[in-house]
Structure formats: C-alpha cells, structure tokens
C-alpha cells in the first residue's frame, strides 16, 4: 500500500530514530514511575494507614485520579468518534492523539481503584458474586466493555497506517518492527472491498464509542449520584460529568498537540487553525460546563437542605481557593483567552488548556473530598485526623506515577506508529475536493 512520500518523510522519522532527549525524558518519567512503585510497596507492606484516607474520608487522591483519567478517556473517545463520524475536515492531524488519549487513560484509570481497595485479594468477588443492582457492578462491566471497544477502535484506525509502514521501503527500522507491522496490518492492501470493510467497521465503532463513552461516564457519575450524600445526590451528575470530561479531554488534546508539534516538528500539519478550532470547542464546552456547575450549586444552595448548606459553606470557606480556581478561573479564563481573537495565539490557547485540565482535576477533588468530610452522622470514635483529609507522599507519588505512565506510553507508542495518522492525512474529503 503506497502513501504520499512527503507525508512518509515528514511523519516517520520519529519511528526510525530516537534522540538522546527522548531517552533522558523517558528516564525522568521512569524515575517518577519507580518512585510510585516504591510508594505502592510501602502501602502494600504497611496497609492504607500510610495514606491520608481514614474512616470518614475513605476516598482520596486515588478516586480523584480514577475519575480524572476515566474522564480523559471518555472525552478522547467522544472527540475522536465525533470528528470521525462527521468527517470534520481539520480532524486528520489530531484524531490519532484523541484516540490515544482514550486508550492510554483507560488503561491507567482503573489502577487507581486497585490502589484504593483495602482487600485487593477479594477483587475477584466482584466477578463471582456480582449484584446487577450495584452501580459498582455496572461500572466494572462498563469499563471492561469500554476498554475492549476502545482497543478495537484504536486498532481499526491503525490498520491502514501499519499497512503503509509495512510497504514503505524507505523506512529504516529493525526487522522486528517490520514484522510487527506485517502481522498487525492483516495483509491490508487498500482494495475497494477491504476499504469498504474497514470504513464500515470504523464508522460503526465511532458511533459505538460515542454512545459507550456517554453511558460509561454517566455510570461513573451515578456511583456518586445514587448515594444520598450531600453534594453527590444530584440528577444532573451524569451529563455534568460527561461535559466536564469532554472539557478536560479537549484541554489535554490541545496540550498534546502543542507538545508533539514542538518535539516532532509537525508545524506543517498541526497548524494554528487546529489550535483555534479545538480551542473554540473548549470554549463552547466551558460554557456548558459552567452552566452545569452553576445549576448544580444553585439548586443545592437555594434548597437549603441542612447538609447541602454545610457543604456549600465549607466549599466557600475551607475550600475557597480550590473552589474559585476550579469553578471560576478554570472556566472563565480559558473561555476569555480563546473567545477574544486578540489572545488566540498557540501558546495562549495551550496555557488556557492547561488551566482547564488542572481546574478539572481540582473540580474532581472538591467533589469527592469535602462531601466525605461532611458526614450526616459523626463516625463513632472520630478523631481529628479522620475528619480532615490530607494526602500523604505515597498518594502524591502514585499520582505522579500515573501521569508518568501516561507520558511514557505516549512516548512509546509514538515510536511504533506516527502520532499523526498517515492514512487520515492522505484521505481526501469531499469538502476538500470541492475546494
């Protein structure tokens, strides 16, 4: 299968050779990862007492990270699915990044659940004694289904690229890599029948992963929403979580676009137009996200249910800084930066995206922690350090390890397949033909 030579020349160097900078960067993140492993060993050895979680606050950083990574994953699926389904012209250079965000986040996210579970040896009980009524069972089924679907979707998008790389004589890679491309390309040669089969499968899977992403993240939201806890018991938590996830995922997509554009010199492919388009998407979602946030807190505040009032009071006092950052700065600042054409430069859009991603993580924190610090009834034998959650270095190290694995997997995958899809780039959309 042949492809445009310029495309191959521009997009394959990162697969052929690895720079010293790459190795150094990878080593740094590997170091963070190993620190996390050390922390995990400490936790396994001494138990959860080494974390900041106690009887009152039984969910800490791990659950926050779990929700955050799962959100990134679902947003990646939504973005790539929508872009593919509607044949958005400018999608081509960025769709691979969105697909990779989906799968990599989905691999990392569930590990944080494992870190949070006190009796991991009983994990298999979920499978041998499942209760369909439990939202936890829904979540296990949903995540496994989503993981499987996202792998298929990602693989479908890779088949053509693997075939192109297999047949590219000018590609200087070790024999194992060629064999790898040969096996995974399934002998694809771009015949009309194969193209039709692949195209149909991709279209169907793009529809599926959009639907699954919405359902699965809603299920995760319902784990909170179906409880009667203050701050969690909300009917809009499902759509609120989905919008929030897309917000963070769009932000991360912009950050990754900026990083890979800079590192792999993709200025010709990932242009300002892409940043502005994804940035505008971020602004629109910010508006929706802001609306949901306001709506959620307004109804709770106006309802004046005692525990909700205590929680909101806590958010505006103890958590003032985090609340303002997550729900005001994190929404308004990215929207302002991108809404005004004057500020729409690539670095500014990236800064806006970074603020959005960080704000979303903080938003997850202030959803999980303050509620647990506001129980309906005081737990028996409550002690001061059980009421107030404070993460320990072990939780920080495992969080850092999760981020490091995310980066490392991106770096490793970029050494196997182009970060900008060659097959997507050489497809001519009808819109472009018309142009």
């Amino acid at each position, binding site marked *: 299968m042949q492809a445009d030579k310029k495309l191959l020349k521009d997009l394959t160097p990162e697969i052929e050779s690895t720079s010293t900078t790459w190795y150094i960067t990878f080593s740094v993140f590997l170091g963070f990862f190993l620190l996390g492993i050390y922390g995990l060993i400490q936790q396994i050895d001494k138990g959860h007492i080494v974390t900041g979680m106690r009887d009152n606050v039984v969910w800490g950083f791990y659950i926050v990270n779990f929700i955050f990574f799962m959100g990134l994953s679902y947003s990646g699926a939504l973005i790539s699915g929508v872009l593919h389904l509607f044949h958005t012209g400018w999608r081509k250079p960025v769709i691979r990044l969105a697909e990779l965000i989906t799968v990599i986040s989905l691999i990392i996210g569930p590990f944080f659940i494992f870190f949070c579970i006190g009796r991991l040896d009983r994990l298999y009980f979920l499978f041998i004694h499942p*209760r369909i*009524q439990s939202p936890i069972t829904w979540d296990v089924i949903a995540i496994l289904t989503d993981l*499987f679907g996202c792998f298929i979707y990602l693989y479908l998008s890779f088949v053509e690229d693997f075939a192109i790389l297999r047949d590219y004589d000018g590609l200087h890679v070790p024999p194992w890599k060629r064999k790898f491309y040969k096996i995974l390309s399934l002998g694809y040669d771009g015949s009309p029948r194969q193209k039709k089969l*692949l195209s149909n499968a991709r279209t*169907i899977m793009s*529809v599926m992963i959009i639907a699954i992403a919405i359902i699965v993240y809603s299920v995760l939201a319902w784990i909170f929403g179906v409880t009667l806890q203050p701050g969690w018991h909300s009917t809009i938590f499902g759509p609120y979580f989905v919008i929030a996830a897309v917000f963070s995922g769009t932000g991360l997509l912009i950050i990754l676009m900026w990083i890979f554009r800079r590192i792999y010199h993709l200025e010709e492919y990932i242009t300002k137009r892409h940043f502005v388009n994804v940035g505008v998407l971020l602004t629109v979602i910010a508006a929706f996200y802001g609306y949901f946030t306001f709506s959620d807190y307004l109804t709770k505040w106006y309802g004046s249910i005692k525990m909700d009032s205590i929680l909101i009071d806590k958010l505006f006092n103890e958590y003032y800084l985090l609340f303002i950052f997550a729900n005001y700065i994190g929404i308004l600042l990215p929207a302002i930066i991108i809404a005004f054409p004057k500020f729409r430069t690539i670095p500014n859009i990236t*800064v806006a995206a970074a603020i959005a991603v960080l704000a979303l993580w903080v938003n997850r924190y202030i959803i999980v922690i303050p509620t647990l610090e506001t129980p309906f009834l005081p737990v028996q*034998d*409550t002690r001061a350090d059980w009421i107030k959650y404070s993460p320990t270095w072990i939780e920080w190290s495992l969080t850092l390890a999760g981020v490091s694995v995310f980066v490392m997997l991106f770096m490793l995958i970029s050494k196997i397949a182009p970060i900008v899809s060659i097959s997507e780039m050489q497809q001519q959309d009808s819109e472009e033909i018309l142009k």
Partner: protein
Amino acid sequence: MKNGSSIFCTLLSFLLLVSYPTFSQEETKISPYIQLQYFKNTDESRFLKTTLTYSLNRMEIPVPGMEISFFSEAAGKELIGTVFTDDKGVASLELTKNIRPPINEEGLWEFSTEFKGNDTIQAGNSELSIKDVKLEMSLQEVDSIKTITLKAVTMGNSSEIPVSEEVVMIYVPRMFSLLPVGEATLDESGTASLEFPSDLPGDSEGNLTIISRFEEHPDFGNIEKKIEIKWGVPSVNQAPVAHRALWTKTAPMWMIITLSVLLAGVWGHYLFAIISLILIKRDSKKQAKLKS
C-alpha cells in the same frame, strides 16, 4: 504581540489565584469538655470515668493520651489515682477494695477529676458527689406473669436505708441499642415490681438479658444490674420472601433486561468490527493466492 498576550494571560491567572483574602488568626488553645461519671456494675465493681473531648465541626472529638488525675475531696483533696485517656478520650479508674474514699457529713463520696492542660489544650476539671446505693433485681414468674422485682438501699451508719421515689429503667439489649421495656418507681420500702412483656423475641432458645439501671442519677451515678433469663420468644430466622428489588438477591427484571439489551447491542457491534477485520485478513490471503 504574541508574547505580550501570553504574559497578560499568565499574569491574570496568577493574580486571580493570589486574590484570595488571607486572614491571620491568633492560635487559641482548644477548650476541652471534661466529664466525670460514676459506674457500679452487676458484679459490684465501681469505676470513675473521665471523658475528655472537644468539639469540632459539630463532632465530638476525643483527646487521647492525656493524664487525668482523680481525687477524693470529702476529707481534704486526696489523690486516688492518675490514668491516661485512651483512643476514645476516656480515662477509667477502678475503685478497688484498697481504695476507701471517705464520706462527708451527708454520707456522700466527693470525687473530682483534673486535667492540667498543655500547650494546645486548656486545663479542665469536674466534680461529682455520690451516695453508695445497692440495687437488687430478682426475676420471678407469678401466676404465669413474668415479674421483675427491684430493691434499692443506701448504706446508713449501721443499717440499710431504702431508696424511695426514684425511677429505675429496665432495658433489653437489641442488635444496635438497648430497648427500654419499662420503668419502675421505688416505693417507701425501696422496692418496686413490674410486669415484663411476654412477647419479646429472644435468641433461638428464648434467652434474654434484662438490665435495670439508675442512669446519670445526680446522687447515685450509673448503677446497673444485669441478669440473663429464658423469658423471650425463641427466634426463628426466616428467609425474606423472595422478590425482585434493589436489596434482594435477584435484580428487578427491568434492570436485567436493560443491561442485557445494552450489552448485547454493544458487543454485537464489536463482533461486527472483529468479523470485518477477519474478512480483511481473508481477503488479503485470497489476493495473495491470486497474485502467486
């Protein structure tokens, strides 16, 4: 220009971040709540119990590891023991036979407890006057009526003095707490009797524990008598009626159908995608054969 707007955005972010008004507040010592109680158990053992707590966010937080001193005050302040508070903020001192606290002119023991305080918690103390009371409980079945008879006396100089016009509470322990089953007012002779309900479930053999108590009495403290007897209705654990609900073993039908349809729909499409990949592989093999 580009750099200018970048700097503007970064500065704006920073300014918004640091705009949080910070207030300095002088560190004040925690004001603790200290409570001294007297307990007398079924086996006649007697305890002084001090609870040291403070209030935070509507919750009562125990203060563990603090030294609490116990004193007898009837004949001048005399230290009778020191105990450290446990994880629940409780320091408990048993008044063994060796400890013979004096009584005052009114025939009362006078106890006090003291916490000296430290760098973070203020000092505190509490006092208590107690009259030694002997509570007796007997259980009899008179004409098929289960009857509890109570007698309470205080120890005078040489004889027993009946405790009259005082209320004794009767409880039966249940799974989570004590079930009040009655209260009896002592007559002039210091006795009272009341009928015990005959329909209370006991364990599988009908065993029940009956507790009679003076509770938080200003003069007597907490005095308890406990007897186990076969006065309950034997319990037979019956399995709940099998129906479909959130809390039963079998899920509601609509839930099973919804989940099954969703999963079948999703995994059916996955199957379609996998079959497409298999067909691509087969097609490529066919093409290769044709070429060769």
